[in-house]
């Protein structure tokens, strides 16, 4: 199994470390690699879009010629885990911004929804069936609207912060910044069931 992590900017190393820490507990060999250019988008079974600055990442996937391939691969069902900036890249609409990125996830998202860095916070909540998961929000977005076929996994103070839609998992928090690997394991299981 090959999991690619978009590595144009942001906290991609944390995801790679998390995957490599848990990979030994799987029978199948799991290779996790960085995607920096279009040529890296080959033989890929799962995609992680990390946190960082969505404006930077959105620009770079276009400038570096990756936009069309990424869009097609996600649209065609490639299992995708997106955190924070990553879910902004996936969102169909951005509430306080006319920009559109990959637009494969039918939700409306609000950038910097909690304000500036002083609004960043941590809490605990269930993410789908994963109970009591630590949520780290850093200048985070939240989701303000979803299509009816999007599954809401987590709400905090009535705001949607985690969704699943077919092959795509979108989180406005940072599982890669915690020591809790359950979300990454859930994602690997999703890749395994997709391959079957």
């Amino acid at each position: 199994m090959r999991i690619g992590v978009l590595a144009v900017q942001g906290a991609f190393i944390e995801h790679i470390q998390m995957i490599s820490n848990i990979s030994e507990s799987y029978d199948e060999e799991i290779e996790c690699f960085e995607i920096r250019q279009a040529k890296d988008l080959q033989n890929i079974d799962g995609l992680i879009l990390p946190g960082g600055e969505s404006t930077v990442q959105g620009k770079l996937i276009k400038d570096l010629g990756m936009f069309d391939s990424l869009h097609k691969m996600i649209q065609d069902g490639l299992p995708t885990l997106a955190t924070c900036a990553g879910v902004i890249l996936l969102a169909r609409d951005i509430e306080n911004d006319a920009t559109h990125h990959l637009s494969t996830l039918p939700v409306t998202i609000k950038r910097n929804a909690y304000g500036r860095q002083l609004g960043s916070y941590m809490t605990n909540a269930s993410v789908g069936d994963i109970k009591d998961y630590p949520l780290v929000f850093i200048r985070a977005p939240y989701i303000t609207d979803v299509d009816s076929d999007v599954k809401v996994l987590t709400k905090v103070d009535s705001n949607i912060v985690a969704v699943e839609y077919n092959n795509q998992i979108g989180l406005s928090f940072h599982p890669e910044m915690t020591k809790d690997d359950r979300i990454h394991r859930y994602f690997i299981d999703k890749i395994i069931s997709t391959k079957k």
Partner: protein
Amino acid sequence: MSQTQIELNRGLAQMLKGGVIMDVTTPEQAKIAEAAGACAVMALERIPADIRAAGGVSRMSDPKMIKGIQDAVSIPVMAKCRIGHFVEAQILQAIEIDYIDESEVLSPADDIYHINKNEFKVPFVCGARDLGEALRRINEGATMIRTKGEPGTGDVVQAVRHMRKMNSEIRKVVSMREDELFEEAKQLQVPYELVKYVHENGKLPVVNFAAGGVATPADAALMMQLGAEGVFVGSGIFKSGDPAKRAAAIVQAVTNYTDAKLIAELSEDLGEAMVGINPSEIKIIMEERGK
């Protein structure tokens, strides 16, 4: 600062990794920087090259000017306060700046003490020339470190020296026997726990960026290959012929810092780079400020 806040503040620096933080003096420049792919901007009244040219005392920027830049962009906005000037820091926290740079580029307000950054909720980045300075700043509460370089010169030599020195000292600490760490902590004038962290992890406990004298895509890629996790570009962009193009080229060079062919393409037709001055020709040595 609570442990949770430290983690959130270190976390924001982690989100900036692989990115370029650009000095801007107006909302227009901030928009150009954001559109070119800056992961954050540093709001200041005068870029270091002009501070150097103007001489005199340089202070925190006008909060109104900083707020204008906060309103103009959606990316994080940083601003500088003087070394040791904790009231300037309180003001920057009050206007909800995303990161404070306690910076040697401004005139130091205190020639002995740095700000006790642990007392603040807002995160701080500080300059460091070696491992000892970096760990002292981290002990005071800094959640991000950058090289000092020699700001406003367009000469990358000092940033290279500081990054090499820091990383060679880290390698030395990693290779030590555990019983040698106590003496090393004494030599570096830092707490044992921080030296132990470096020994065990082979890196600082916070993100480390390059800053000072970066003027070209090649300079930025050089700093990344030397181990920087991202780059600050100060005077290098808006003191050059075509700021938008140069800024975008530096951003791409930081992402693909080992791809020489791509950096060659990015380096074409960028117009004039900032003229630069040689540090041996200048009177004010900013890197000496704050140890």
